[in-house]
């Protein structure tokens, strides 16, 4: 790791200016995954003085500051309730407390890490990203955009609604990256089916979601058909943790459990 210069920015404006002073200047967030990324940084920009560590509830939305740590997400009473607590549950399954005390929600999002367990529930929750200058966008739009967004993520917004959620991480131990993670959410007739750590970045099964939306009743046959569609439309890859075929098989099993969970009281 080589860092030429380190600045603790006194304001978002100053951090934004530092970011744009050079192409190899980086926001370091919590720094938890820094060793997995580019080993040389001209200016490392620290946002810890900007009061971006917060979780607030304005009645309609939950706002999460970009520098909020995963451990705070996991322990938060509000997040433990909405969408059946899938974001908190995902956060608490990431490695040990030492890592959760430094890794931030903003770092997990902006890194677009394929192994992320946080991105999958955030996509299922239709979470909205608020940047310092760039237009706001949903997490899934951010993950899919080819645009290189050199901006500062300020906060993540989750709309409160009568929603259900399901999340499962499939991994050998807490310290392993997931072989696959799956999130399913439901808001009325709207479903989200999301697979992450495929090993690619989290992705939605749009066709399966639309299929479910058109159904009057979600029974066993419908669920079986939906997960076949979901597993067929999403791409799965192979690495040392599992083959594409294995991941596809897991996807069907856990997506079905997820649909069942959000349409019944099984969770």
């Amino acid at each position, binding site marked *: *790791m*080589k*860092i*030429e*210069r*380190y600045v*603790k920015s006194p304001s978002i404006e100053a951090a934004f200016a530092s970011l744009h002073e050079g192409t190899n200047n980086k926001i*370091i967030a919590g*720094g*938890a995954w*820094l*060793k997995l990324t580019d080993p040389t*940084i001209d200016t*490392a920009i*620290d946002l*810890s003085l900007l009061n971006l560590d917060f979780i607030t509830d304005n009645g309609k939305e939950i706002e999460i500051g970009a520098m909020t740590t995963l*451990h705070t997400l996991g322990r938060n009473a509000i997040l433990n309730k909405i969408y059946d607590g899938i974001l908190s549950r995902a956060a608490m399954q990431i*490695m*040990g*407390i*030492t*890592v959760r*005390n*430094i890794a931030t929600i903003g770092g997990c999002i902006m890194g677009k890490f394929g192994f992320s367990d946080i991105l999958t529930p955030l996509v299922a929750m239709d979470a909205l990203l608020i940047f310092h200058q760039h237009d706001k966008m949903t997490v899934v739009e951010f993950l899919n955009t080819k645009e290189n967004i050199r901006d500062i993520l300020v906060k993540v917004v989750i709309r409160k609604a009568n929603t259900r959620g399901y999340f499962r991480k499939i991994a050998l131990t*807490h*310290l392993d990256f997931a072989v696959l993670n799956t999130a399913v959410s439901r808001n009325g007739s709207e479903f989200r089916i999301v697979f992450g750590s495929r090993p690619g970045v989290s992705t939605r099964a749009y066709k399966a979601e639309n299929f479910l939306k058109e159904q009057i009743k979600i029974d066993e046959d419908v669920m079986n058909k939906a997960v076949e569609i979901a597993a067929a439309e999403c791409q799965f890859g192979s690495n040392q943790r599992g083959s594409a075929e294995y991941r596809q098989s897991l996807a069907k099993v856990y997506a079905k459990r997820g649909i069942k969970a959000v349409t019944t009281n099984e969770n």
Partner: protein
Amino acid sequence: MKIELTLNGRKISVDILPGEYLIETLRKCNIHSVRRGCDTTNCGVCTILLDGKPVPSCSVLSAQADHHQITTIEGIAHEAEKLSTFFGKEGADQCGYCNPALALSVYALMKENPHPTSAEIDEYLIGNLCRCSGYKNQNKAIMAFLAEEARMEEQ
């Protein structure tokens, strides 16, 4: 660059490189109890307390810790010594390489949740790997230690 730390209650000023990690800076400060293990946040042997919270010193840049409080085992020597007697009684100790980090995590747990269940202890210590003694006896030792601490508190 120069940073200021409160290391085990003592204010110090240290010269660091911008890309230097806390584990390296602590060595410069003659703190050798913080072990180097995997260097990738997995093993937990480099755990220290940053403002009272356990963090991996192999993955926190020293510059991030500027003007913050760092606690190593030297800063909780009294509690660590007491805990070690319970480790000894339960046979929860062998080579000792992971012990300073484990003691710091137990100390942080005690502050966050003074009356944890056995399952909560296991969950809190997931990131503290031990390759010789196993975890069952550690859990029993920690339960006994915390029960004794609670009893002393009541008196």
